[in-house]
């Protein structure tokens, strides 16, 4: 059994938007930020509150990359794999992170510390290759800097 989900934050978010289909994506965005993922109970509540079938809520929640149905790690590491980052060696960084964290892109470490993701472009192409840890950008990263970053030395 998973721990019971507190629905209060969800109610607060729902109060800020008109109760119809047009609010669905905006509500899910806020919920993702608050809960760090979209728990089933919360989605059921959204479906009822916005009068949108649960199937439709799921179809939107699984279509967009911004949403996750499973909990994410405390820190989310995003390797930018935009074109500029790619030709400056983003895949080498991803390989190194996968090796260091012992998970593949799209997964979360078992201690829930890190989630590793690739992102298509964070729009910081001039400093390629770029890694984002939560909201912090790391620019011109070389594979040998990855371990230092994870150890918190940078």
């Amino acid at each position: 059994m998973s721990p019971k989900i507190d629905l209060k934050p969800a109610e607060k978010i729902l109060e800020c938007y008109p109760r119809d289909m047009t609010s669905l994506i905006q509500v899910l965005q806020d919920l993702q930020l608050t809960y760090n993922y979209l728990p089933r109970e919360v989605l059921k509540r959204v479906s009822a509150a916005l009068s949108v079938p649960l199937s439709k809520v799921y179809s939107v929640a699984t279509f967009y990359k911004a949403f996750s149905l499973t909990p994410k790690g405390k820190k989310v590491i995003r390797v930018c794999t935009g074109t500029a980052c790619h030709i400056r060696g983003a895949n080498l960084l991803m390989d190194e992170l996968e090796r260091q964290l012992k998970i593949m892109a799209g997964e979360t470490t078992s201690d829930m510390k890190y989630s590793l993701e690739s992102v298509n472009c964070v729009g910081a192409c001039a400093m390629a290759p770029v890694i984002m840890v939560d909201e912090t950008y790391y620019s011109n990263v070389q594979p040998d800097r990855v371990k230092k970053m994870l150890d918190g030395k940078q």
Partner: protein
Amino acid sequence: MKRCKTPADLKKWSTGLDRQRKKTKTRILVCSGPGCLARGSRKIAGAFQKELAARKLDSKVVHKLTETGCHGLCQQGPLVTIMPEHIFYVQVKPKDVPEIIQQTIMKGQVIERLLHTDPGKKEKFQDYRKIPFYARQVRVALRNVGLIDPNDIEEYIAVGGYQALAKVLTGMKPEKVIDMVARSGLRGKGGGGFPTAKKWKSGRDAPGEQTYIICNGDEGDPGAFMDRAIMEGDPHSVIEGMIIGAYAVGSSQGYVYVRQEYPLAVKNMQQAINDARKAGFLGDRIFGTPFCFDIRVSRGGGAFVCGESSALMRSVEGNVGEPRAKYVHSVKRGLFDQPTILNNVETWNNVPYIVSEGPERLASMGTKKSKGTKAFCLVGKVRNTGLIEIPMGTTLREIIYEIGDGIIRDRPFKGVQTGGPSGGVVPNSLLDLPVDFEALTRAGSMMGSGGMIVMDDRTCMVDVAKYFLHFLMEESCGKCVPCREGLKQLHNIVDGITRGNAGNGDLEKIENLSRSIMEGSLCALGKSAPNPVLSTLQYFRPEYETHIEKKKCPAGVCKALITYLINDKCTGCTLCVKACAFDAIVGKKKKMHKILEDKCTRCGACFAVCKFDAIEID
């Protein structure tokens, strides 16, 4: 905040700001674009604040400290500009701040050490407008980006903001506004290049209960960040353009669709909208006229296909972003099945400029069919990476070798990728191609939203094609089978080539399958998806053939086809031994090292650390 009920109120407000500006002796502009932020510009701004306070100097009026949007030369960040002298300091560190205040702000002396040195000419520049990177640019879309505080509406008003709106609302008929835009020659800057005035006119004439205006800020093309720079650095120009557009087409509700990967753009746009509403530029009876208009921000969900207009509209409605067939254009039936005019960020931002400067000004720039300027992101293997804006018709050579100062380490230029995943690679033989909508399309690429990724001989074109196919395969919405399944197969074939598993007739298969995908897909994503592979095949076919026949990657990128070697430049410094996580390098100190091929994973760590060019890729 002041509220403008009439154009006279705005005039009074801006005259008041002018008077206040006269008291300002220096303006300290700290670039807070994404590049400089990543390099710690927040700390620089903080240090200025602290240091000015410690010296009991005012940071609001006399020495005005401003955090701006992207200034452009991201490569050299963090950037600090001292106005009005345009003194330009690069790679500034917090410890430089006291010296800048002491020398430059107090005594008016320039600190040589912090000036930008042009790598090619070894010349130092005091005034940034003289640096070749800036000197060749013409800034229309980026006219205020990097020069004003995006979160202060007064800074926008002080540079003439919302004057164009006042002029339009109180003195021009909607038809005249459309005519003015037509005379400027403005075309959609999102990539398609559709004449803006024509779109507006169709939208105006379309029957419906409500006409909507949309600003497409879903800048999904990897390698492009112009729209981000404009939304973050000069959001009011976009809003003003949208209000003028809404008046011209008769709309009362607008949406700005911003991708969620740009949190700062969402924040700055939202604040600008709130401020514009408080100041009376949005809402009911704008400038005391019967015209009412408001804007809402809609955040995207991280789907590339939502940059496509019909998918974007589905997404604003709260749905899954799947495009629809365009038998009926969205200007007739778009958002909520109503007439909808959708333009890109840069297009909206050009509109106030056209009104204030007159349409002839924009029409005088550019080529015969492509008027005005275009903002680009110059990135990849070029020395000066950053945000640029050039008149249409500027050649690739001027962009890459003059503005960009050539290729990193003077390696040979191989090609430049434009148009994102819908575009292609323009090879070095077309270096003198003038950049406009038509020329790029003729070259097998397209303008796209403005990413320009420069590639050198160390970039493998087969790998580039594979990269885009993988991108598109993941981003295909799945509605049309040829796109969804075809891209997967196309990716498999190209992936096989990069792994040394090419089959007979693979190149012909690629060409056939590409044609089917183009013909069988509904939207531009599918129709243009084979472009990257077809254009690289057109210009770099021998490179594909070397991968297939000789099982070699000449650029040294495809891991399965390369080996790392150590040559006699090796000094035995052991740096690579320490960098290798797989114990694949052996050798004693000061003796030439050796790579054990069976242990080497081709991770590139040794290549990155070697200071003597002793690691070779074969």
